[in-house]
């Protein structure tokens, strides 16, 4: 071999993957060291979306902070709102009316569907399957219309409140959700037809980005990524919260822990979420959605404007230093968000503002395994692996 050729053959190439690469979905950046097309070393860099959410938690009161939780996982803000208020309610020792719990479950599961649909669409698009992307987004649009009608916003939902939700479901909600639920299985079937036995899809995803169950636990993976590695664990089953024990559903588990299994697990989770929503809709109890306590829940507008009592209650909740004040102490509360275990660790000093809020983001631990999964693989596998992990930059960097 020519001397120059020999030198080139041993030389590694550095490739900057992101932060603006279309397959990085947000601002992720990985510096890849390549030998030909093989990834020798991968170094993720993060912090591009660091916004100081945990610091903000020490300065905003408990209800104000709900707005911040929207911005963490911007693909499923409703799940974040839900997880956060459950933590505060645990600190307060509040019991939410059954209807409120069911409404929250319905919204959280619809939000899981929306999250998985974006993951499906984007993940498939990254690997060149454009149709699945359009099918996924078409369905997601229907969900976002429902979210918009319920919460007033498509993305910054801020739907939950400490002690309940912003408002009850609107008239006609049930029909719209039922229409979605009956049309959705058809789309899911179409996507299965497009991808599941597709030669190209299988070649790109099978035995790519493999992680064993033991490693997945050691790396702290949770949610669909953990279950795809064969560990059957779902917080909705293991530690049921907000009436999840009332619903009958299966936990999807994979075998090989590769991209293909993570795809199958999420596809099955969408089916199960539909089951849960249907059960919750069929058995939706009557009654209030908020805690009937004037020191926690805002009074209705007509009371706030029309009665001195209502006005005082409104004032006391809204004004700085008067609002929701949990006792001293510390709690950790976790929920099964679409991406995995979303935990909130709150230290309260007894005032209306948390002394410390720590968010345990599933995305941070999911992103950490990227080098483990792609080192030794090909450059094109990076796209498949990143897509399958569904790392959300807003939650990753907080």
């Amino acid at each position, binding site marked *: 071999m020519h001397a120059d050729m020999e030198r080139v053959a041993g030389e590694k190439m550095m490739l900057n993957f992101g932060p603006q690469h279309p397959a990085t979905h947000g601002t992720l950046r990985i510096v890849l060291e390549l030998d030909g097309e093989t990834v020798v070393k991968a170094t993720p860099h993060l912090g591009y979306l660091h916004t100081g959410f945990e610091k903000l938690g020490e300065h905003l009161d408990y209800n104000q902070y709900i707005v911040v939780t929207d911005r963490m996982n911007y693909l499923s803000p409703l799940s974040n709102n839900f997880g956060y208020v459950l933590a505060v309610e645990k600190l307060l020792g509040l019991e939410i009316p059954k209807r409120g719990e069911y409404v929250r479950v319905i919204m959280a599961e619809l939000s899981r569907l929306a999250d998985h649909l974006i993951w499906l669409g984007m993940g498939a698009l990254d690997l060149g399957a454009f149709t699945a992307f359009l099918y996924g987004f078409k369905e997601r649009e229907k969900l976002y219309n429902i979210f918009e009608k319920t919460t007033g916003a498509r993305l910054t939902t801020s739907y939950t409140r400490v002690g309940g939700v912003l408002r009850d479901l609107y008239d006609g909600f049930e029909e719209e959700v039922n229409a979605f639920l009956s049309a959705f299985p058809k789309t899911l079937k179409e996507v299965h037809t497009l991808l599941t036995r597709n030669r190209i899809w299988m070649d790109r995803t099978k035995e790519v980005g493999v992680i064993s169950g033991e490693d997945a636990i050691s790396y702290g993976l949770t949610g669909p990524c953990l279950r795809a590695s064969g560990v059957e664990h779902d917080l909705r089953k293991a530690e049921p919260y907000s009436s999840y024990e009332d619903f009958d559903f299966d936990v999807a588990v994979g075998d090989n822990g590769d991209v293909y299994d993570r795809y199958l697990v999420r596809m099955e989770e969408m089916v199960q979420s539909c089951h849960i929503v249907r059960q919750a809709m069929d058995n939706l109890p009557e009654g209030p959605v908020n805690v009937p306590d004037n020191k926690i829940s805002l009074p209705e507008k007509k009371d706030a404007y029309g009665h001195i009592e209502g006005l005082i209650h409104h004032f006391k909740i809204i004004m700085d230093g008067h609002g929701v004040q949990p006792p001293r102490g510390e709690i950790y509360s976790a929920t099964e968000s679409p991406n995995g275990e979303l935990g909130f660790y709150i*230290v309260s000093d007894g005032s209306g503002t948390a002394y410390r809020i720590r968010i345990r983001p599933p995305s941070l631990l999911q992103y950490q395994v990227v080098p483990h999964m792609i080192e030794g693989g090909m450059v094109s596998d990076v796209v498949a692996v990143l897509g399958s992990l569904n790392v959300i930059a807003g939650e990753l960097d907080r």
Partner: protein
Amino acid sequence: MSEEENDTTSSGKSPVVFERVKEQFQDGVLDLSEEFDELSLVAHRDSVYEILEFLKNDAKLSYDFLVDVTAVDYSQMEDVLTKYDYARFMVVYHLYSYKTGDRLRVKAPVHEKELSVRTVTSLWKGAAWLEREVYDMFGITFENHPNLRRILMPDDFEGYPLCKDYPLRGRGERETFDFERQNA
């Protein structure tokens, strides 16, 4: 026995994990408590690694999942400060057992003059980034950590944002941020 016994439980019966840990590490355990249905264990900084190792490897307890590592700056909470000999920080580990489904919180008080804890990366691979974040946000170092660098803030950032003495709006970094140097 020791004074810990008085404040172990509200129900009168001490949880198994507390019994086991007390048996193994008499001096290493500073406090055991059960609040809001959550178990919490305060360990001495020097023995927290051994206690975590024991909790993970003990066949009966088997806390095999490290949920989270974080820290709290207690400099504005007088009673906690006095209780733990004016240790400003508390490193907090959250554990979960896939076998028993139990959760446990382990905390270790850290003094400002000895701002370090032994890393748990040898026990859980996932601890690496969690500990880097604690270092980045509080300045607490982890001994023998394979790659202890800032993770969210830029490498040349000065100060530790989640400390209580760091102002919410920063110390003017936004005005003086040098884009050209960052991109070089």
